[in-house]
């Protein structure tokens, strides 16, 4: 913790302490910041209490898309009361006996009130049933370990089993280092699941949200039949810090942002959050199939 700002009134100091304690690295820091200062951390526009919630957690001025927790995402996306969560009780083990991993997981579970970095289940968008997986950057940077890989694979295979289209919202820093080679292999596992969905003739829709990096981009993240992204989301393979390390200079501002990927041809559309539901509903409607026999 930096101890730069130590001055101020007692109240201010207390408030700072409270937020600091709550704002673990895994919480949605930008929003904590906005709530605390009552202004958007990017354009500094004043933000009323509850204003963000009403506006899909998007800044009304600069339309910065704040990161969402899976619950918020699901609430904004699917029809009311249509979502049923699956595989909630999957918990990770510590295959490498990585020191401190179990404690870290337990701590993050308590802070985020999530079981793992992805929530999966079945729900409906404007009446169209889907198998849905929503990742959470709050939970250890959305990193993909055994549980995340397994839940995503199961969500995709549930699509095969139940003949449903699959929608995946990604948000991840990449593979989870603490699970080593097991994390890496989740890339292959989820890619195979996507292959099976394809063989079953069912669509996979991927929505890339801020940020999606590493092993998640390089597996199911880039295997969608239609790939959408939220505006301004950081999407790539190697992280900006790694890249700056190799090229020894600063990266251009829009590098690895959704709009950049749109121009280089790796995503289909950049979709604002408030239109996401109707765009997905359109896609679901467009992918109903007549029976072949």
């Amino acid at each position, binding site marked *: 913790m930096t101890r730069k700002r130590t001055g101020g009134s007692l109240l201010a100091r207390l408030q700072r302490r409270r937020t600091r304690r709550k704002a673990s690295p895994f919480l949605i820091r930008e929003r904590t910041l906005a709530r605390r200062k009552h202004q958007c951390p990017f354009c500094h526009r004043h933000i009323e209490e509850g204003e963000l919630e009403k506006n899909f957690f998007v800044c009304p001025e600069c339309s910065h898309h704040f990161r969402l927790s899976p619950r918020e995402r699901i609430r904004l996306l699917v029809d009311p009361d249509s979502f*049923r969560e*699956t595989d909630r009780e*999957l918990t*990770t*083990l*510590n*295959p*490498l006996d990585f*020191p401190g991993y179990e404690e870290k997981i337990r701590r993050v579970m308590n802070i985020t009130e999530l079981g793992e970095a992805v929530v999966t289940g*079945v729900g409906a968008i404007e009446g169209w*049933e889907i198998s849905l997986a929503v990742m959470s950057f709050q939970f250890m940077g959305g990193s993909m370990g*055994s549980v995340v890989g*397994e839940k995503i*694979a199961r969500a995709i*295979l*549930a699509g*095969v089993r*139940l*003949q*449903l289209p699959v929608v995946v919202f990604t948000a991840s820093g990449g*593979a989870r*280092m*603490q*699970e080593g*080679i*097991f*994390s*890496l*292999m*989740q*890339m*292959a*596992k989820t*890619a*195979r699941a*996507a*292959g*099976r969905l*394809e*063989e*079953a003739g069912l669509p996979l829709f991927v929505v890339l949200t801020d940020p999606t990096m590493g*092993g998640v981009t390089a*597996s*199911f*993240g*880039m*295997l969608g039949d239609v790939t959408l992204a939220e505006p301004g989301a950081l999407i*790539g*393979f*190697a992280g900006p810090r*790694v*890249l700056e390390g*190799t*090229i020894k200079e600063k*990266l251009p501002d829009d590098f690895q942002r959704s709009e950049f990927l749109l121009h280089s041809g*790796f995503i289909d559309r950049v979709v604002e959050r408030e239109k996401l539901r109707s765009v997905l509903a359109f896609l*679901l409607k467009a992918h*109903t*199939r007549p*029976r072949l026999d």
Partner: protein
Amino acid sequence: MKKKKLQQKLQELLALAERDRIDIREEISRLREKITGDDDPAGRAWAKVLKAREPDRPTALDLIENMADSFLELHGDRAGGDDPALVGGIGLFNGEPVTFLGHQKGRNLKGNILRNYGMAHPEGYRKAHRLARQAEKFGRPVITLIDTPGAYPGIASERRGIAEAIAANLKLFSSLKVPVLTVIFGEGGSGGALGIGVGDRIFMLENAVYSVISPEGCASILLKNSDQAPAAAGLLKLTADDLLGFGIIDGIIPEPDGGAARDHPAAAAVIKEVLLRELAELRLLSPAQLIKNRSRRLAQIGSFSEPNGFLMEAAPGKWWNRLRETIVSRLPAITSPYGEQGEKETGREE
């Protein structure tokens, strides 16, 4: 410090032996034991990392030349580029045609500049994709040889979609209709290795390593200090022994005395023997059986618990069917907008 001195002494001895052609194998193994004492798993793992990176280890083309009766390299991804860091082509392997793919490092600075230290760009993975499809079309088995620090992290690489190229390969290789044999013979660096690393049989040379992140990377992120790389190497469990224990690989291929770097033909001969044996087995399987086994293999990798389901560790038994049961029984009854399709077919049995 002490270790460094020992290592220095080892290097001196090696140089001396090289010059005078004396047999000093005994001294070497004694020193090596001292360097990598059994009480120090991190030291042992780090020694393997250094060994895997030795510049005079065989490269993919060295191995292919020594293993294949003849080999014709093929170039290009048919989308605008050719990547010298990932090579491929058709070879006759004990008289039978196979497709070889492999990461190619250089032997010296000049070679490494050409080969980009074995770090492939998207073009490399797309070339592999094309050659794997070609192999599938003509029923040739695919042999992939892995030795890369990772896919290249650069601006051009990102712009041309390295993530997409790797993702496409994962999907293709996991459902390829021909046998795929994989040997990690040096560094298995994360997604860059996995990009040609999904196969029916996966082997590692005894001094190879395979990991989700380099020890240096892990150290700088988690331990906040890149000098801690040796400690990170121990934590990451990246040696062949570790991976065999996890059930991720199928076997460890022994190297000649002093490591594969000392004798390329001998190293290649052992690899060839193992690959021929496995290939003979895999040739008996139908494409559907191959894909089924490969899918199951991938689906089984993971380490988690499910309180009212089942406990799954590295390599469980036949849980796949139970898993499917679990998925379905746990879900509520759903009326599908796709009408009767829900009841019709439950997807291909695989």
